């Protein structure tokens, strides 16, 4: 008997240890100070940031560790292996019950649900006109930071006197023609031949402007579709990229046959096309990429594909201006909602300042990481700053996702203002090269040398850039905020293409830009911005200035 018992115990042990441990999908509530640091210290597989929480994959012991800090962790799905999850908005009770009948539906936040199925294709089970955002498959943990957002920051960067001339070229007739042209495809639902033809139409337009343009094909659910991408190479630092984008696919209750999608989102694509037409005639400091995404309505697949490729290629994306529904308004004094996540706060701030300076259109800045149903959101997941420009964060267009979303329902006063504001924001980031001014210094780099005493640490930041041949000197600017609030730190122009900013607080991030100056005092555009990141502790702890988490040793 004894050997038999031993054998049973051995088999049981082998069985128990060979069964993979379930990895649950969990909701981790925000609110605990130093939460990001704790998540990093424990290497939690965070896959989505929302307004009030993070969604993550976690094993039981990881959940227990987080709970020791008083963090609220709740399980959404006990075993997440192999499951594909979608965030969906709050729907009418009838639609909610229809969706929940098709699969699992769990509330995550007010007006936000998580949908998944245990079997079958969740994409096929979700009604075509329901907004959805698939949860990323890879961790977003490396991109998470704690941001300090001030109440208000001055722009700190110079206004570019070419921008008014640029935005004044926005033509209402052109916007109408582009929307009409896209609407004429009857439907642009991603899986249809009409959508393919619409893509060809947009590509032909970009090519007619003489831009470098092409398709970016990708596959979803066995169906191939394609983004349309065009570029104007920057003259100063072409590897620094500003993106303006919108999705050209459309949907409705009869998506396969009729989805005119004038407001959603021929309007956004029209603004992108008009921006391309106008900027094609201007040299710019940085590269501008114009993108019309496909498969947004299926789940942001086009932008997901593009942003993932960009991240893989370590592309330097300064910012993304995503336009989605910018032409319908019931209220004549409509403002443009600009929605960002915590990491992109500066982009909304800057868009607001730019609108004040150039167009006068009221911009409503909204920081809401739960606003995920458009093409900016996959860029957030890849750690890129992105904003969504939209007529209303809660669309009030009665024709939304219906066959009635046609060009005759649009408000072209608002549409033109929104397109001009988007172009101003884009131009502000990409910087038109000004004639009669010094060239913009290229290739700015920052290198920090940190020195520590027992208690404090300082850093010297050494800046280098390429000399501008006819420059009398250079001004150096610094800010503690990205792309905002720069102040001149060189008392007089420095004569060489090098500057060392000394004895700075090592635990603070600093952002630099330089300009070239001519003898008469004329100053160039700002160079690209470089960051000297905050030094982090040389021992294992969450983040500088926050409470330390214990060192975690774990077998993987």
């Amino acid at each position, binding site marked *: 008997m004894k050997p038999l018992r031993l054998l049973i115990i051995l088999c049981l042990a082998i069985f128990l240890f060979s069964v993979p441990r379930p990895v649950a999908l969990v909701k981790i509530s925000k609110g605990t100070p130093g939460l990001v640091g704790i998540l990093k210290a424990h290497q939690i597989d965070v896959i989505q940031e929302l307004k009030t929480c993070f969604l993550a994959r976690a094993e039981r012991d990881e959940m227990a560790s987080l709970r020791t800090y008083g963090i609220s962790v709740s399980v959404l799905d006990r075993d997440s292996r192999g499951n594909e999850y979608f965030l969906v908005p709050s729907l009418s009770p009838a639609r909610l019950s229809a969706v929940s009948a098709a699969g699992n539906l769990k509330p995550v936040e007010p007006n936000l649900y998580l949908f998944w199925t245990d079997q079958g294709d969740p994409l096929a089970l979700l009604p075509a006109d329901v907004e959805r955002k698939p949860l990323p498959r890879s961790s977003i943990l490396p991109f998470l930071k704690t941001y300090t957002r001030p109440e208000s920051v001055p722009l700190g960067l110079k206004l570019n006197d070419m921008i008014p001339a640029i935005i004044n070229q926005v033509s209402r007739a052109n916007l109408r023609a582009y929307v009409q042209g896209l609407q004429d495809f009857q439907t642009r639902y991603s899986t249809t031949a009409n959508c393919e033809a619409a893509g060809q139409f947009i590509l032909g337009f970009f090519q007619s402007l003489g831009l470098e343009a092409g398709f970016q094909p990708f596959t979803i659910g066995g169906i191939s579709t394609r983004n349309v991408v065009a570029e104007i190479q920057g003259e100063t630092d072409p590897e620094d990229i500003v993106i303006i984008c919108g999705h050209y696919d459309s949907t409705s209750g009869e998506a396969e046959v009729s989805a005119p999608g004038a407001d959603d989102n021929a309007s956004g694509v029209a603004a992108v096309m008009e921006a391309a037409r106008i900027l094609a005639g201007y040299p710019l400091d940085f590269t501008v990429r114009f993108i019309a995404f496909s498969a947004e309505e299926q789940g942001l697949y086009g932008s997901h594909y593009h942003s993932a490729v960009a991240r893989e290629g370590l592309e330097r994306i300064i910012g993304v201006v995503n336009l989605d529904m910018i032409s319908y308004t019931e209220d004549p004094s409509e403002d443009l909602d600009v929605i960002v996540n915590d990491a992109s706060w500066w982009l909304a701030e800057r868009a607001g300042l730019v609108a004040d300076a150039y167009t006068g259109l009221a911009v409503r800045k909204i920081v809401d990481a739960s606003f995920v149903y458009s093409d900016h959101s996959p860029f957030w997941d890849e750690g890129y700053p992105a904003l969504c420009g939209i007529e209303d964060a809660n669309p009030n267009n009665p024709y939304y996702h219906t066959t009635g979303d046609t060009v005759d329902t649009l408000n072209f006063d608002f549409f033109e203002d929104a397109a001009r504001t988007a172009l101003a924001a884009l131009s502000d980031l990409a910087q038109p090269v000004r004639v009669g001014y010094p060239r913009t210094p290229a290739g700015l780099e920052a290198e*920090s*040398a*940190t*020195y*520590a*005493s*027992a*208690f*404090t*640490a*300082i850093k*010297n930041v050494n800046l280098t850039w390429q000399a501008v041949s006819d420059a009398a000197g250079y001004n150096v600017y610094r800010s503690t905020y990205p792309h905002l609030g720069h102040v001149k730190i060189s008392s007089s122009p420095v004569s060489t293409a090098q500057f060392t900013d000394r*004895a700075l607080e*090592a*635990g603070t991030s600093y952002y630099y830009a330089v300009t070239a100056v001519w003898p008469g005092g004329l100053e160039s555009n700002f160079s690209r911005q470089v960051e000297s990141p905050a*030094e*982090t*502790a*040389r*021992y294992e*702890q969450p983040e*500088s200035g926050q409470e*330390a988490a214990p060192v975690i040793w774990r077998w993987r």
Partner: protein
Amino acid sequence: MTMKRITLLAVACLVLGADVWGGMNWGFSAGAGLCVLRQKEVQEVYGSGFPVGAQAWTGWGNWKVSVGFEYLSESGQAVALNGGADEFPLKLKASSIPIALYYQVWMKDMFLAFGGGASYCWYEERWEDLDIVTEGKKWGPLLSFLAGYRLSPRWSVFGNIRYEPMPTGKSSLLVPEVKLGGLKIGAGVMFYL
């Protein structure tokens, strides 16, 4: 903080008022030492420390109480964390009042004493070329072992090993909590009234 002040006052009263109790002796000692095995990161900045100090002793029987004053002044150099070539001289000053209770045993003319207590430390670190000063004060524990030899009825020499970490409660890029002390080895002379 109030409790700490009361404790300090109580111990001072105990020591200074001890002569009203019969059979208690007074003594004084002075010495210097070497602070080794301090935090490696602090040592990289300042090297080993050389504190000097003086103490007053009293007690009864085998029990002794001591209160002292110790001073440490060091020059150092900021550590370059990522290859910088600049030099930033530093100055550290730390003063402490160690208060300890010892159990002392005599073996002919030799004595051994073991004790423990607390020390109140205040410190200042200054970047000499920059306007950066860090100051603070904090209580910390101490453990001490002392061995001595009586040269005459009034004079003794002694050596001691003391563990006095001098925690500061402050974190830095280098360590979660900066500790200015460590294991101190010293020697000195003792005088009995």
